[in-house]
């Protein structure tokens, strides 16, 4: 049962990832990205990481994709006529992609996993909120604080970046 679900979610994720790359319309790309994230959340459920699956849907599919769609529609860039790729660009990206696939697959294939390559032998630790809380508030307390501060800085940075500064006032001050 779980291997059928794995294949289902894997195919959904990869097909929608290809959809992100090959869709001409940026809005369609964003919707494909959303579906791809849903597939990844399903994979997380299969890996017994329920909290991460929920967070993936809430944070990524909810906030990030909504932000992407908002910006795409705000800027309204459809690009018009797409330029043809030069042969050098296409060839070099195919070569680079091929090399990346080869490297990653050989890495994944030669990875030494010892006795742990079957999930049934391993105790499930990631399925309770209590386990996360214990880790986050003991071992990872400092990173939690730092990440909270990072979110504050990001919020301030976004406000500064998207504010329209009045250039004439600056020139008058000079």
């Amino acid at each position, binding site marked *: 049962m779980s*291997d059928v679900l794995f294949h289902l979610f894997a195919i959904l994720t*990869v097909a929608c*990832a290809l959809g992100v790359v090959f869709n001409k319309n940026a809005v369609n790309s964003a919707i494909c990205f959303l579906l791809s994230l849903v597939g990844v959340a399903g994979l997380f459920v299969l890996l017994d990481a329920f909290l991460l699956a929920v*967070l993936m849907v809430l944070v990524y599919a909810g906030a*990030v994709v909504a932000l992407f769609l908002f910006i795409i529609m705000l800027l309204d*860039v459809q690009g018009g006529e797409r330029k043809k790729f030069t042969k050098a660009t296409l060839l070099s990206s195919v070569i680079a992609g091929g090399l*990346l696939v080869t490297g990653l697959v050989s890495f994944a294939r030669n990875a030494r996993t010892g006795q742990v390559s079957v*999930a049934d032998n391993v105790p499930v630790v990631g399925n309770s909120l209590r386990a*996360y809380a214990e880790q986050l508030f003991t071992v990872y307390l400092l990173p939690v604080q730092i990440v909270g501060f990072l979110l504050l*800085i990001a919020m301030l940075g976004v406000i500064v970046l998207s504010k329209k500064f009045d250039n004439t006032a600056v020139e008058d001050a000079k």
Partner: protein
Amino acid sequence: MSLAAASLSAMSALPLAALTGPFEVSLHSYLYLSAVIFAVGFFGVLLRKNTLVIYMCLELMLVASTVALVAFSRFNGVLDGNVFVFFILTVAAAEVAVGLAIIVALFRRRQTVQVEQLNALKN
């Protein structure tokens, strides 16, 4: 007989062997999947011209790495990978907000987000 066994063991080393026989979802399956998603995202970054779509493909690569982390964590019976993915999600949310603000500021200045027209640093 031995030839058949040898060919069978050679087949089981391939990911496609999943379609031919009984299949146990192993760590390697998740790693292959993660590699494929990462490669698709990388390909998109190289191939697309729209800055917003390039940014989406970057996010796709980030998501691929989280799949690998959660799979490693699950198959080793530890929680650290999951906690790390927790942090990655937080940082990615902040990063997307800042990146999109930069793209909006860029559009306001140049009236385009196509990378072939954003060539102020060329030559």
